[in-house]
């Protein structure tokens, strides 16, 4: 049986914890709004870009001279997994769910006899994958110093990827991130970015025939590398919003749990205080009776 003082200390410490989680929840809520606005703002660019790129890819794609970024290297032996996670923890299952998906994919590919390489973005995923798949790591992108993820960050990652691709380090690159659905639901997603793949939207495709200046292939060669950056940027933003959403709901749960714990401890505290009073009374009464 803990003493009254112990109980009081515990209640006090849980109250402090609740204050912290409450504050973190509110911070996450504010950041979530900003992250959502950023994701919203980038959408017109991404959508237009992909639409034009898909149109171009459809017209050039089948020819032999199509750029490697589109047609691939003709092999899928070396697979690069780009695992994008958060720099911080305390956001529920956010990091674990991406790591889990990436690990499953890596194991599946290894079982098929493919070579797997992993590039991590964000510290948490790296920590989680290190034990099993640490020897597959080929690089890490640290975003812990970055306050607001900008297009430059995506460009840096894309440049790194493209350089590795040009050097023949891998054939296929897939990014792993959490797609933001709502505050309580984020969907871990795997998306192939090299060679570029576009969702089939043939029927919705433009009927307009465009003039191309310079020619289609030159435009495609110019736009494909930018497309990689665009997709990474979109993934980074989705991830940012998901992280804040996950943290918000995790902290909301934590705050509620702390509240319940405080209630329980308070009841226990009151009971034991009552017990102390009762035993003191008994001592006084029995002392008086003895006289």
């Amino acid at each position, binding site marked *: 049986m803990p003493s009254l003082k112990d109980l009081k200390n515990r209640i006090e410490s849980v109250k402090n914890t609740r204050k912290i989680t409450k504050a973190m929840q509110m911070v996450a809520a504010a950041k979530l709004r900003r992250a959502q606005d950023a994701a919203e*703002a980038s959408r017109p*660019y991404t959508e237009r870009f992909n639409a*034009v790129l898909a149109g171009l890819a459809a017209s050039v794609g089948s020819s032999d001279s199509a750029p490697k970024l589109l047609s691939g290297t003709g092999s899928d032996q070396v697979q690069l997994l780009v695992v994008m996670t958060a720099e911080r923890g305390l956001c529920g299952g956010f990091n674990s769910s991406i790591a889990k998906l990436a690990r499953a994919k890596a194991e599946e590919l290894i079982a098929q006899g493919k070579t797997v390489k992993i590039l991590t973005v964000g510290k948490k995923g790296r920590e989680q994958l290190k034990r099993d798949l640490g020897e597959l790591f080929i690089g890490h992108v640290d975003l812990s110093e970055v306050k607001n993820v900008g*297009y430059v960050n995506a460009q840096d990652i894309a440049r790194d990827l493209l350089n590795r691709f040009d050097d023949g380090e891998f054939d296929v690159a897939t990014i792993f991130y959490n797609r933001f659905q709502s505050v309580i639901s984020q969907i871990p997603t795997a998306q192939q970015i090299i060679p570029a793949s576009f969702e089939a939207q043939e029927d919705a495709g433009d009927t307009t025939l465009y003039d*191309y*200046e310079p020619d289609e292939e030159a*435009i495609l060669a110019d736009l494909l590398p*930018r497309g990689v950056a665009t997709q990474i940027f979109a993934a980074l933003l989705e991830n940012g919003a998901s992280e804040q959403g996950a943290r918000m709901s995790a902290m909301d749960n934590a705050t509620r749990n702390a509240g319940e714990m405080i209630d329980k401890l308070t009841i226990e505290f009151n009971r034991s205080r009552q017990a102390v009073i009762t035993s003191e009374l008994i001592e006084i009464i029995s002392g008086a009776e003895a006289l």
Partner: protein
Amino acid sequence: MAETVQFDLVSPERSLASFAVEQVQIPGADGDMTAMAGHAPTITTLRPGVLHVSGPEGEVEYVVTGGFAEISADSISVLAERAIPRADVTQEDIDGMVQAAADALNKAKEVFHNEPGPVDDAAKLLADMVAMGTHIGLNPNQANL
């Protein structure tokens, strides 16, 4: 009043402009082109340069680098990796862009010894950056040339 056409300027981070305009002068990779209502559908890549927009509310100018423009009869969309209203462009922006282009050129020179193509492309990019800087009246730092 001239016929107007919907104009959108978007960068990855935000949408900068969306309104009806009379004409837009676009710094295309193969040369400047002016698009007005009823233009033949065209897609062109951009070189670093100044985008002149003449709308009902007067002239607006943006400095754009990297990306493309999609022109159709009733809309003009410019997707630029960087787009800054001309008035907001600072010396540092220009210096940064010129520096990045110069770095790319040096790298291209290292990587492609006997292939002039990529080196020429990078050199053109740098020249375009410098020309753009001069054009808008800022002093492009040419120490790296």
